[in-house]
């Protein structure tokens, strides 16, 4: 399994070296120039790279708007780490708010974030997913009461009050016990 992926990567790299400027043809017909790093990180783009037009050197991408793609390009300009992305295993290893990659998304509106999450889910980019979802949205949920989660996640409950009481009763989270130290 590992051998096949490594050969895939090497063939991709040799193919990438031949072409200088790669452009994406977005949903609204505009062209966006992207770096080779983005193609390497995205499963979908590296797969679509095989259907690249040799003359115009563009990859068709009919599902994503050009403004969203430009934001992704801007994000990758901020992060200079060129190595292969490995997700952090511990909570403490997660980047903090001071990290430029996390701060980049903090000023986005709800609609922009929405479009971005859809885009990175479509393109299958683990680094981008982790930065938007796991470091930003997790902060919205973590250590909150249910009321707060509903308010910040902008959602309404479809439980009736009786059902909710039943839920708390049935799925009672393990209670913490203080040990005599």
């Amino acid at each position: 399994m590992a051998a096949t992926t490594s050969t895939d990567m090497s063939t991709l790299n040799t193919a990438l070296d031949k072409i200088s400027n790669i452009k994406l043809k977005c949903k609204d017909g505009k062209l966006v120039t992207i770096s080779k790093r983005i193609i390497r990180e995205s499963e979908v783009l590296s797969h679509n790279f095989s259907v690249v037009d040799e003359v115009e050197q563009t990859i068709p991408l009919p599902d994503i708007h050009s403004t969203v793609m430009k934001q992704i390009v801007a994000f990758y300009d901020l992060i200079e780490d060129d190595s292969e992305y490995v997700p952090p295993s511990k909570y403490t290893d997660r980047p903090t708010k001071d990290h430029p990659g996390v701060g980049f998304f903090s000023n986005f509106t709800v609609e922009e974030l929405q479009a971005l999450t859809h885009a990175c889910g479509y393109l299958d980019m683990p680094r981008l997913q982790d930065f938007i979802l796991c470091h930003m949205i997790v902060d919205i949920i973590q250590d909150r009461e249910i009321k707060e989660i509903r308010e910040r996640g902008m959602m309404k409950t479809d439980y009736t009050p009786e059902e909710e009481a039943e839920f708390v009763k049935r799925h009672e989270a393990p209670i913490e016990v203080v040990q005599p130290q």
Partner: protein
Amino acid sequence: MEELTYVVEAKIVEKTEQMSFVHDENENPNTMLATSSTVLKSRAEAIIHEEDEDSFFDAGSTSFVEARKQLTRPDYLYQETPCATVRNIRKRKAAVISGESTSKIKLTDMPNEILNNIFANLNRRDIFSVGQACYRFYNISANSIHWRNLNMTNKAVLESAFHRLISRRTQNVCLRNGSIQADRALFSREFTLCCLVRLDLTATTFAKAEMLVAILKRCRNLEYLSLESQGILPPEAYNYIAENRRLKLLNLTNCKEIPAEGLKRIFKNCPLTDISLNFTFLDEAASNVVIDYLPSTVTRVALAGFDNPLFNDVSLIKLVQRLPNLIEFEIDDNNTVSNKLVTVLSQCPNLRKLSMSRCYNVDPYAFTLLRRLRVLNIYGNLSNTGYKYIREQLPKAIVNESHLSTIGRAIDEHHFWGVDIADKY
């Protein structure tokens, strides 16, 4: 002497006061900690002036608090997860940091795969509250990938809730030092089979003995099982343990009145490699089963803590010669064994660790024959000069490494018999 104890008591009182400050939810814990430490300082100084003599405490600094931090209990049971107070402080810290931003996002518009990805980064408690938000989120949060490892050390859980949790294809459960509480709404204990592979019920308290049997009844795939300190188990529990045909590790430390038939069935069905029977006080029939039927795949055996005349030189030599792969052997507190066993053990090709603390019938010279060992625990057998001599004679071995048994126990939550079950947080 009385004055000295008075000083110590005064400090402990101040320490508890300080802890109660930390408990306060509305206050910032850091500032309260600082103020309480200054109060502590001034009070300690006052005590010292009253004493009017040199004390061996450096009471002017916070060294007592530091010392308290350093002086943790040696028992491995209490070192796993932080207790509730520590977690409460952490919770507030995290809430304060992220409370500055008021970012919102429409979570309900996201596809299920992405939500799954988000939830994989949450700890168990947050997954519970997410499931409470709405129906769709409940279904996503019940996905088995979030429940593969369950670390509930030091926690109490309702019986019905526990069964519902392990029904989510959970593989590794640690309920060390926890407790399972009775649920009045639960009418029958008939459940379908579960997928548990590693189960640690060390020192878990059960409201009724049937609860433990009901859990064991659901398991067929167990590979690692610890039932340490469970006391007297019903005999059918051992029959259910024997149903796990891949069981490698079994820890029955402190389980009393183990039936010979159940033990025999376990030994016949399970390819055991590690077995701990410390402090089990086996009766005659069970002892004979251990000697005659212990599978030859076993590499680590613990038979310490009880002086059983049936585990004498003849029977134990018979046992050791049946186990070609023996790596660790514990036979502490046995007064019937003598030099003959030690000479046989010195010829075991793979033996690396031996515990023979307080075996007073063994001539100390025999220990110098154990040239292949890496660890040798012989507490209470020799004087200090004797240990020095043994260390010179066995340069490769560590003499008197630890009082505690290591067989059948997971090291910590990061090394839970080969998996990391530390909660994300």
